[in-house]
């Protein structure tokens, strides 16, 4: 229910949602983000990570996004609050 409420309170299409982005020029395929937050990141056959859902972090997963960013050895994950 809480999830629904939050969506209801922020109807302006994700505009105030946290976003994540993998800088593909820095990503070396350590796959830490994919291991820690598979809801937010995926990896291709070469191990390169990319953000799901155009980087929009669903409500309640903000901590997972921060955790993924804080564990990237190459500092490749950018968070926009």
């Amino acid at each position, binding site marked *: 229910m809480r999830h629904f409420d939050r969506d209801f309170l922020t109807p302006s299409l994700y505009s105030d949602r946290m976003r994540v982005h993998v800088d593909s020029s820095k990503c070396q*395929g350590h796959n830490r983000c994919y*291991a820690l937050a598979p809801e937010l990141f995926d990896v291709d*056959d*070469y*191990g390169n990570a990319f953000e799901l859902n155009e980087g929009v972090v669903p409500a309640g997963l903000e901590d997972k996004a921060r955790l993924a960013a804080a564990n990237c050895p190459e500092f490749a994950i950018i968070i926009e609050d």
Partner: protein
Amino acid sequence: MTTVYGPVTDWATDFDHGDPEYNNNIHEIWSNLKASGCPIAHTDRYGGTWLPLTHELVHEIAYDTDHFSSQGPVVQQLKPSQNPDAIPAPVGAVPPISSDPPFHADARRLLLPAFAPKQIDPLRSKMYKMCNELIDKMGDRDTVDAALEYSQHIPVLIIAEMLGLPLEDADKFRNWVNLILGAIGAERNEERLAMFMEFSEYLDRHIADHVDNPKDDLITFLLNAELHGQKLSPQHVHGTVVLILIAGIDTTWSGIGSSIWHLASNPVDRRRLVENKEMIPQAVEEFLRAYAPVTMARIVKEDLEFHGVEMKQDDWVLLPFPAANRDEAQFENANEVDIDRTENRHAAFGLGIHRCIGSNLARAELNVAVEVFLERFPDFELNPTEEVTWSTGQVRGPRNIPLRILARK
């Protein structure tokens, strides 16, 4: 036992990472060097070698492929330039770890899909089975050696099967691993040369067999692979098989061993992981940070002033990712092993374009090995009547972990 260069006189100016004392006292040596204001140690040994100690320096060198070549990833007494059989940059003897841009990216891209998470995850069930079988074999003895009876077997069996090499030759592989990575400071005599020849001929024989009898494994994959429109050269195939076999074995063996050694010496951590299995992945990342097994090496391409030291063309430069992982500037309480550490950008698998290609495999093996060991042996301690021994050289891990088993399932 010292190396051909004799006992170390001073760790800042005459260090020897092939001397057993180095890995035995590694954290003390680094701390003393840093405390004495020495961020880059040097030795004339191996023809001139540098040892940077901070995360910042290690990171910078790992990224700077313009000035530092990967042609010699393991420091040896002969430099590639002194070895008439050396395969020149940018390919090197064991591509892609020995390769430089631009060749490196293409040689690496060939291999990456075989080691991607979606290929590795299905192997986990095999790992569980193997780890449980290793523990079954120990029977009901109260004393075991977790290195000799457990950690050393897990990566060998997986990598031999991936490559398509006979599992019963595991002892041979471990001897060759020690020859190449451990005995870097040993006298270069006939016996040593004969062992290298034996290794090379062994692989040639198995590669030739794969030419005649293709299989569903990495050797056959390499034989069929194409790079720039051509099949890989026999040299390239051979070199990559050497790389996968050697790099896939004692690195993970060391990581599993160090984790079990830590858990034997730290009952609080052990109990917490036994009671909270879901904490194991985070704890394993901390063990990877604190006991990172692998130091790589580079070769200076041309004379260079680097943060106040004069590096000469052809000097070796060690990249001690384990030291970078214990840098206070990068990690809070870097010398404390804290399984609650959530922010952990450790560099155990390297930094930059040479990130360990087997990192997903190694992580899976480490997690499964720790989980099964704790499940079967919820309580154990180091056996005080026997000695823990450590490897020598650029890969660090325990080679004997004598344990007393206090509870089993």
